[in-house]
């Protein structure tokens, strides 16, 4: 009874229709939030007293970095659900997450390095947070590499799921070891945006962007999930019905 919704999630046609129905809601609300956040961040917010206009890249950089970690977590949870309850749809969710997460990670790296050019005077600094973001990108690439190297879909699902779970145990260890590495090797030269002391007209657009990026991820995930489910179930009769509508 209370668990019916969960059991129905194991049915590909149900998930396909649910994803179809939910996508516009997430897509439109994320578009509105991102537009509002961009307007607030790029037009309304005052320039930073130290960094000038350059700080505004944070409105893309911070949400991308946040999403890169969140997508990995979602991917690992979906993979664990797929491993434990042998739920095919969960594996499809994990598979759909990886390229999106890798793109967010790349966006965070590129914006971080663009920000570094005026602030540090160089495009790349071995800053601990940028470095652990780079390692995260390698983790995503490994996950996607393992998936594409394994031809049998079910085996690819389960093998990459084990990797995602091992990875998620390691992500905090890697993050903190990189922080520790940097603090020992060089003096802290990194400028930090002190978040709690950020004035409200800078903070509100950032929060809007965070929420907007999250909803955008859900919308993209649902769209990719539909494609993934269709290609996995391509021989099922409901796919023919769904596509001939």
């Amino acid at each position, binding site marked *: 009874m209370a668990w019916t919704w969960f059991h129905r999630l194991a049915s590909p046609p149900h998930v396909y229709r649910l994803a179809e129905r939910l996508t516009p809601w997430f897509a439109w609300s994320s578009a509105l939030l991102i537009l509002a956040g961009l307007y607030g961040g790029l037009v309304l917010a005052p320039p930073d007293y130290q960094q000038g206009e350059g700080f505004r890249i944070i409105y893309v950089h911070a949400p991308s970095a946040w999403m890169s970690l969140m997508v990995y977590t979602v991917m690992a949870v979906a993979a664990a659900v797929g*491993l434990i309850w042998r739920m095919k749809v969960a594996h499809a969710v994990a598979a759909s997450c990886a390229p999106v997460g890798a793109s967010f990670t790349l966006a965070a790296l590129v914006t971080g390095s663009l920000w570094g050019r005026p602030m540090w005077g160089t495009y790349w600094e071995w800053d601990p947070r940028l470095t652990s973001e780079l*390692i995260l990108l*390698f*983790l995503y*690439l*490994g996950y996607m*590499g*393992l998936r594409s*190297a*394994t031809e049998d879909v*079910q*085996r690819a699902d*389960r*093998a990459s799921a*084990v*990797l995602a*779970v*091992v*990875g998620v*145990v*390691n992500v905090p*260890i*890697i993050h903190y*070891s*990189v922080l*520790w*590495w940097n603090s*020992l090797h060089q003096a802290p030269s990194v400028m930090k945006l002190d978040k709690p002391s950020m004035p409200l007209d800078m903070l509100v657009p950032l929060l809007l962007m965070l929420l907007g990026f999250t909803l955008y991820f859900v919308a993209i995930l649902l769209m990719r999930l539909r494609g993934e489910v269709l290609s996995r179930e391509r021989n099922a009769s409901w796919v023919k019905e769904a596509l001939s509508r």
Partner: protein
Amino acid sequence: MSTSTVMQPAASSTSALTAARLVLERDLRLAFRKREQLVQPLAFFAIVTTLFPLSITPELSRLREIAPGVLWVAALLSSLLALEFLFRDDAQDGTLEQYALSGQSLTWLLFAKTAAHWLLTGLPLSLAAPFAAGALGAPASAWTGIVASVVLGTLALSLLGAIGAGLTLGVKRGGVLLSLLVLPLAMPILIFGSQATELAMKGASIAAPMYLLAALTVLGVTLAPIAAAAAVRISLE
């Protein structure tokens, strides 16, 4: 005899520890009959170490600065090279399948295989490391610290690598993929390992990075064989 009786795991009277010991002995015996596999990772380690003085500078004072990094990158790469052989032969001739069907805990058997692998590659590397470090300008007093840190680091790496080796079993030409899977996860080992070596070379206490390396090893001993067994099962399906 029907097929169903063949497929069923045999009820075994051998305890898990005895089975693991037998696997360990078998792997060691096999390796000593094929000695070139023992020597290759060591030779690779020596060659990679030689590349750095040739490509940077022969001056010991400058080499000393990069010695910990060179040592650990070389150790990491040569253990990675050896990892490819961890399960491959046994997967090809069906031994791994027999292990999986034997009724014994696959986790224990793979733990024994990983331990044998470390004894054959990690331990010789740890013993060779002080000589390589010496050639790069490390003082002789640093050798205990170097051996201890490489022992722990290669142990953690073998355990971690067993998962990657299990996952890439079914993949043709999986060597590059194996590196892509294992290296990002091995970054903490590299960081703490080279830290310990650097401190040992300066004559400082290496306790802090050694505790962290030991923690990684303990985590590897407790969790990695379980994940490796799951990975091997998936690859054998």
